[in-house]
C-alpha cells in the first residue's frame, strides 16, 4: 500500500460516527492522506473532489486484531494481496496477522517479508504479530526486541496455546520490556485432546469428540493469574465461554492489565450449527452453547470484551470437504464481520456506537495502534457504510480466496460501500 493522495476529498452530509468523539451529520475533509477537518458545512473549494454521503455512515476504518493471511507458506489458501482485499471489502483498514505461517513468523526476516509484501501488494495496513516462542513450539522465547524493531505489534503462538506455565510467565515478563501485548489462544490441550466440537448435546448426539468449556476456562484463569503476577499486558483471543467472560470481568475490576476479543461466529451461532456435520461450522474455539453466546453478548455490552476480531482463517474448498474430524478448524470472517455485528443492534443488544467502538478504537487501544479514530490530524482510514443496505452473503463473491463460511445465504443489513486507507480509496462496492 503506497500512496498519499495528492488531492483533497470532501465527504459530505454523511452521519459521522467516531464513538466518544462525534455522532452527527457532518462533512469530513481529507487532505494529503490525513483527516483535515470534521464539521458542518465545510466549504467545497474548486480543488476538492466531493463525495455525497447522504444517508451513509462515515466511520473510522475497522481494526482486526486476529487475521490469518497465510503468506508465506500457504498461498493457496490466501495471500497478503487477497487477504487485504477482503479486509478492504469488509471496511477493515488495519489488520493484525498471526504468525502461524510457514515458516512461523518468529524472526525479523519473516516480519520484514510480510511488511514488504503488504507495502507492494496490500490494500490495507498490515501489522504482524510475532511468535511467543521459536517456531511456536512453546519452549524458547523468540527475540522480542528484534520482532518489535521489525514491526511486530504483539506476540502470540496463535492456535498453539502456551501450555507450559513457566514459559508463559517468562513471555509475559519479557514482553513487558517492549510493551508488547502477549496474545494467548486459551485452550488446555490435554482437556481438549482429540476434540472437534463443543462438548455439549450436539457433540453427544453426533458422536464427536468434545472440547469442554473447561479447556478454555482453566487457561483463561491461569493467564489472568500470570498477568496479575507479572503486571504485563495480556490479550485473550476469541473468548467463547461464559466462564471466560466471568473471569475476565472479575480480573478487570481487580485492575489486571487484560484485554479480550470475541468473534462474530461466537456471538451469532451456537453448537447447533454443527449438525449435519457442517465443516464450515468447525472452528477453534468451537461454537458453544446458547448460554455461552448470551454471555459473550453481555460481555460485549459491558466492556469486558474490548474488540470484535474475525479470526479470519481461509482454507481451500477441498480441505473443508472432508470428514468433520479431519477438516481444518476455522472460517473466513473479514467480509461478514460488519453485517453480523450490526445484527446485534437489530436485536437490541448493542447500540451502533458500541458496535463501531468494538470494531475501531477498542481493538486499536488493545494493541496500542494509532488507528480507529477520525481525530483531525490522523491518517484518513475510513469506512463508508450504507446502514440500510440488505445483502445476501454469497461466498463466491468474496475477495478472499476462502469460501469457508457458515453464513452463506444469510441476509445481512449494513454494507461497506467505500473504504479509504490514508485517503486513498481501496474498495468500493
Amino acid at each position, binding site marked *: 500500500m503506497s500512496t498519499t493522495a495528492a488531492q483533497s476529498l470532501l465527504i459530505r452530509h454523511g452521519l459521522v460516527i467516531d464513538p466518544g468523539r462525534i455522532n452527527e451529520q457532518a462533512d469530513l475533509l481529507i487532505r494529503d492522506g490525513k483527516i483535515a477537518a470534521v464539521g458542518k458545512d465545510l466549504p467545497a473549494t474548486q480543488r476538492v473532489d466531493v463525495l455525497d454521503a447522504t444517508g451513509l455512515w462515515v466511520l473510522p476504518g475497522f481494526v482486526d486484531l486476529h487475521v490469518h493471511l497465510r503468506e508465506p507458506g500457504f498461498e493457496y489458501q490466501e495471500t497478503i494481496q487477497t487477504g487485504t482485499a477482503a479486509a478492504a471489502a469488509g471496511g477493515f483498514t488495519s489488520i493484525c496477522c498471526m504468525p502461524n505461517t510457514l515458516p512461523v513468523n518468529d524472526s525479523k526476516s519473516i516480519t520484514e517479508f510480510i511488511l514488504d509484501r503488504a507495502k507492494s501488494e496490500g490494500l490495507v495496513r498490515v501489522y504482524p504479530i510475532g511468535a511467543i516462542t521459536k517456531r511456536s513450539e512453546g519452549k524458547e522465547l523468540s527475540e522480542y526486541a528484534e520482532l518489535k524493531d521489525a514491526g511486530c505489534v504483539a506476540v502470540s503462538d496463535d492456535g498453539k496455546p502456551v501450555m507450559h506455565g513457566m514459559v508463559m510467565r517468562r513471555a509475559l515478563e519479557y514482553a513487558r520490556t517492549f510493551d508488547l501485548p502477549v496474545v494467548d489462544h486459551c485452550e488446555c490441550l490435554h482437556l481438549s485432546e482429540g476434540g472437534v466440537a463443543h462438548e455439549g448435546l450436539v*457433540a453427544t448426539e453426533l*458422536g464427536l469428540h468434545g472440547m469442554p468449556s473447561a479447556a478454555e476456562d482453566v487457561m483463561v484463569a491461569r493467564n489472568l493469574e500470570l498477568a496479575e503476577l507479572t503486571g504485563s499486558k495480556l490479550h485473550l483471543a476469541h473468548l467463547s465461554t461464559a466462564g471466560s467472560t466471568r473471569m475476565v470481568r472479575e480480573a478487570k475490576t481487580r485492575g489486571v492489565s487484560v484485554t479480550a476479543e470475541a468473534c462474530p461466529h461466537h456471538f451469532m451461532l451456537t453448537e447447533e450449527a454443527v449438525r449435519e*456435520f457442517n465443516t464450515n461450522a468447525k472452528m477453534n474455539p468451537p461454537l458453544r452453547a446458547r448460554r455461552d453466546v448470551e454471555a459473550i453478548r453481555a460481555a460485549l455490552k459491558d466492556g469486558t470484551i474490548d474488540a470484535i476480531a474475525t479470526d479470519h482463517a481461509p482454507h481451500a474448498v*477441498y480441505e473443508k470437504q472432508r470428514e*468433520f474430524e479431519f477438516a481444518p478448524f476455522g472460517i473466513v470472517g473479514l467480509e461478514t464481520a460488519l453485517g453480523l455485528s450490526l445484527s446485534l443492534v437489530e436485536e437490541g443488544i448493542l447500540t451502533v456506537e458500541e458496535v463501531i467502538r468494538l470494531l475501531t478504537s477498542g481493538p486499536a487501544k488493545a494493541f496500542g495502534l494509532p488507528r480507529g479514530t477520525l481525530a483531525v490530524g490522523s491518517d484518513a482510514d475510513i469506512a463508508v457504510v450504507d446502514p440500510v443496505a440488505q445483502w445476501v452473503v454469497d461466498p463466491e463473491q468474496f475477495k478472499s480466496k476462502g469460501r469457508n463460511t457458515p453464513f452463506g445465504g444469510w441476509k445481512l443489513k449494513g454494507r461497506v460501500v467505500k473504504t479509504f486507507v490514508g485517503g486513498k480509496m481501496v474498495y468500493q462496492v
Partner: protein
Amino acid sequence: MSLKRKDLLGMADLSVEEIQLILQTADSFKEVSGRDIKKVPTLRGKTVVNLFFEPSTRTRTSFELAAKRLSADVINFAASTSSVVKGETLLDTASNIEAMQADFIVLRHPSPGAPGILARSLRASVVNAGDGSHEHPTQALLDLFTLREKKREFKGLCLVIVGDIAHSRVARSNISALVKLGAEVRVAGPPTMMPRHIEELGVRVFFNLDEALKGADVIMMLRLQIERQGIALFPSIREYSRIYGLTPERLRLAERDVLVMHPGPINRGVEISPEVADSGASVILDQVTNGVAIRMAVLYLLSAGR
C-alpha cells in the same frame, strides 16, 4: 408407505413409520433366509460395494450375505484410514468406486458423519455400516427386530444399555430408535464413559449397574474397547468387570424373562460372563441371524426411486 430416501445414514433421521416398515419388510426376508434356496433374484445386476475403513468381519459378512441373497454382485473394498488421511480423500475414493457403476456403497468408517459426505455427492445409495461413535443403524434395526420377535411391543419396555456409552455408535442408534418407539431406556456405566447431556435424549443415567438392572426387560451389553487409546476411562479391566460386568447374580436383579443382547464380538469374562452369554436369556445369536434379514430389507427398500 415406502422408504422415500436414497440413503440410510442413521436412526435419528428415521420416523417411527419408516422403522416399522423396515422391520415388517425384514419379516419377509427372514422367511427367505429360512428356505433351502436362500436366494431371490430381486437385485440381479446390481452392485453392492462394501467399503470398509475399519476391519469388521461380522458386519461385512452380514452385508455380503444379504446382498448375495438378493442376487446382487458384491465387492469388498478394505481401505486403511491412514493412507486416506495422507492422500486420497474419502470422496475421491468413493467417487472412483461409484465410477465402476456401484449401486450401493456400504460404508464403515471411523469418522462420524463420513457416510453423509458420500450420500450428498454420490448417485449410489449409501448405507452407514458404522461411522465412528455416531451411528450404526442396521445394528439398531436388527436389535429392534430381535426385540420385536421376543417381546412384541416396544412401548413400556424397560431396556438398559451398559458400557462405554460415550464411544458407542450402537448405543446412540438404539437410544434414538427406542426412545422414539416409546421404550424406557436406561444407560449404565462409569461417568468417564457417559457423554454429557445424554439425559436430554430421553434416557435415565445410572452409575450403579445393580440399580439400573432393577425391573429391566432387556439388557444390552456393549463391547468394551480394551484397545482404546489415550488416558484410560477405567483403571483396570479387572475392576471394570467387577463393577460393570454382567454376571448370573446381577441378571437375577432384572425381570424373570429378561433378554440379554450384545452387538458382538463379546469379550467373555469382561463385560459379560460366559454363563450369561450362553444362558437362555441370551439372544446374541438371534441378533446375528436377524442381521442378514434386516440388511436385505434395507437394500431392497433403498433400491427404488433412484
